[in-house]
């Protein structure tokens, strides 16, 4: 067959079959078949669009929940209720000198004696007014938990309280011992007369037999003075008084859904993580943690963000990647807020990504375009400390040993990740259970 004939043959068919529009009548049955095909597929297309948004809403809800649980219990405020600035003034006047930290502490036992016997202030006050008066600034100044310190002293001297006398042993408590219960922070409020609003002060001023201050004590309910659970306070005082900090070890299991994207979260895909974290509380505020987390990190990216040496005959339009990653973080968390059973920390650190498996699937602009459809890499890439972690953790202590935590986090790549060298970033909320290994006392 000559070349000319070949062309003729090709031409004959091209002309005859090239413009086929008018040769096939529409067949409704074919449309019905297609409809069935589309209905059978029925993928929830919107889910990918909505999940990142739902995730954001969930994170906001968690933060709100955290804030709500954080709301401080207004215990201390009750103690101040009913005290007016005018009631404070007489107390400061009764100070023997302007150095409340020294004078106050020297007679601190008397003052605490008075405060702990709040239910019978007049008795205690009537015994040794001279010694009680200067005690006021000390107790008043050591507001908050430091009150407990002083009460602790009185609790150790129950005999003196019962007899409504200032027992000699109590008076002989060395100045240093009392000072030891008042840490540096406690000293500051002592010098501030405005802070002298504690109940103990009023019981003390009662002892001065000053008309004004006596009237004042009437405004104070005994309940506000007496500690509800002295035993617990003694325990706490022992802890704080000892001021010996032991590192706390914790083991946490975290599970988290997250969104992953290359360069942005525009085409974010949902991934999952599960991991174990070991943490050491090196100070009251700082915690160092490390561990390992197995992550499924899927993402979709434009082909422009995809970098490989392979030359595609027809460039795919976008690439869908499914990466299995071992994430080894090293984080430091700083406790910003801690009250009662709740705490809130912010943290940062670096993660190493061990890329266990990377599968890239190529989507072409025209479906069915000839070219590689997928590519898989196994155990090839490692990014040591290549990802920056930023997180915030809300933790709620369930009991002495266990706490639950919610941790919104963001992982920002410092280097290109994976075989395709993309800026793979992740954001999510980790939920976890922490076992506080060597903690034996409730906070």
């Amino acid at each position: 067959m000559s070349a000319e004939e070949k062309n003729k043959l090709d031409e004959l068919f091209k002309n005859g079959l090239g413009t086929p529009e008018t040769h096939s009548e529409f067949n409704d049955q074919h449309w019905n078949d297609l409809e069935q095909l589309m209905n059978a597929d029925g993928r929830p297309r919107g889910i990918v669009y909505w999940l990142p948004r739902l995730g954001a809403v969930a994170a906001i809800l968690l933060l709100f929940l955290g804030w709500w649980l954080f709301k401080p219990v207004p215990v201390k405020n009750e103690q101040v209720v009913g005290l007016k600035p005018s009631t404070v003034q007489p107390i400061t006047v009764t100070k023997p000198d302007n150095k409340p930290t020294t004078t106050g502490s020297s007679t601190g036992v008397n003052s605490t004696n008075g405060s702990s016997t709040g239910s019978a202030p007049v008795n205690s006050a009537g015994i040794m007014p001279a010694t009680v008066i200067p005690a006021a600034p000390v107790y008043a100044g050591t507001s908050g938990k430091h009150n407990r310190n002083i009460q602790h002293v009185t609790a150790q001297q129950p005999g003196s309280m019962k007899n409504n006398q200032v027992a000699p042993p109590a008076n002989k408590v060395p100045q240093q011992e009392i000072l030891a219960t008042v840490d540096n922070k406690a000293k500051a409020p002592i010098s501030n007369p405005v802070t002298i609003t504690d109940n103990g002060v009023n019981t003390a001023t009662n002892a001065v037999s000053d008309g004004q201050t006596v009237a004042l004590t009437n405004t104070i309910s005994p309940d506000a003075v007496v500690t509800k659970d002295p035993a617990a306070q003694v325990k706490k005082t022992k802890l704080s008084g000892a001021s010996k900090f032991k590192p706390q070890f914790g083991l946490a299991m975290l599970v988290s859904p997250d969104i992953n994207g290359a360069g942005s979260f525009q085409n974010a895909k949902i991934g999952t993580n599960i991991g174990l974290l070991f943490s050491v509380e090196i100070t009251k505020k700082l915690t160092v943690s490390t561990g390992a987390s197995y992550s499924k990190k899927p993402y979709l990216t434009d082909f422009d963000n995809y970098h490989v040496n392979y030359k595609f005959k027809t460039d795919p339009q976008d690439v869908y990647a499914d990466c299995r990653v071992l994430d080894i973080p090293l984080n430091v968390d700083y406790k910003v807020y801690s009250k009662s059973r709740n705490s809130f920390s912010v943290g940062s650190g670096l993660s190493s990504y061990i890329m266990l498996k990377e599968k890239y699937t190529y989507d072409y602009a025209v479906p069915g375009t000839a070219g590689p459809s997928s590519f898989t890499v196994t155990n090839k890439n490692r990014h040591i400390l290549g990802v920056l972690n930023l997180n915030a953790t809300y933790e709620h202590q369930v009991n002495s040993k266990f706490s639950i935590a919610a941790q919104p986090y963001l992982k920002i790549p410092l280097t290109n990740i994976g075989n395709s060298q993309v800026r793979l970033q992740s954001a999510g909320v980790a939920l976890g259970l922490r076992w506080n290994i060597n903690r034996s006392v409730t906070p």
Partner: protein
Amino acid sequence: MTEEDLHQLIRGCAKQDRKCQKLLYKAFYGFAMGICLRYAGNRDEAAEVMNQGFFKVFTHIDRYDHDRPFKAWLGRIMMNASIDHYRANLKMAYTDDLEKAEHISDGELADKKLNYDQLLEMVQKLPQAYRTVFNLFAIEGYGHDEIGEMLGISAGTSKSNLHKARQKLKLMILKADQPYVGQGGKVNYSSVVAINRSDMNGVFFNNGIRL
């Protein structure tokens, strides 16, 4: 349908509006079917492939670049759907020897008055491997390298299949004049693809060996 109407339909399809999808399907049914018929062995098969193509159109319509002609995009999808179908069905290979077709006296091909249905019937009678290469080369205008890549075969195989397709078509055209073939009737032979040359003597057709 104006260009604006078309783009409105496409936008509706992007929102998965079933009415718009049906209108678009109707509007391009003939065009799409025409392409798929050339690649398929019969009308039912063509309709099946066409629907696969439209399914891809509707699920990936967000990828359509509005600056380019829609018809060309849709046409390529139909062609690719046909190739996918070809790949999926490429489970059997056929042998045939068409060497002797070379000795058939050449007819005046250009003078043949063959209508669309006749030509389509001939193409459809080609074995799938030949038909696909012939469509891609003679009608779509691809080169053998490209065809080889599309179909996962070598350029040499593509050339060989094209050659054999032409031989068969030539035979069919020549026979189309003969009374026993009949107008629109079935050509009395079963086609097979020649991959390995087998030493067959005598009759040219009906001697396929299925491996």
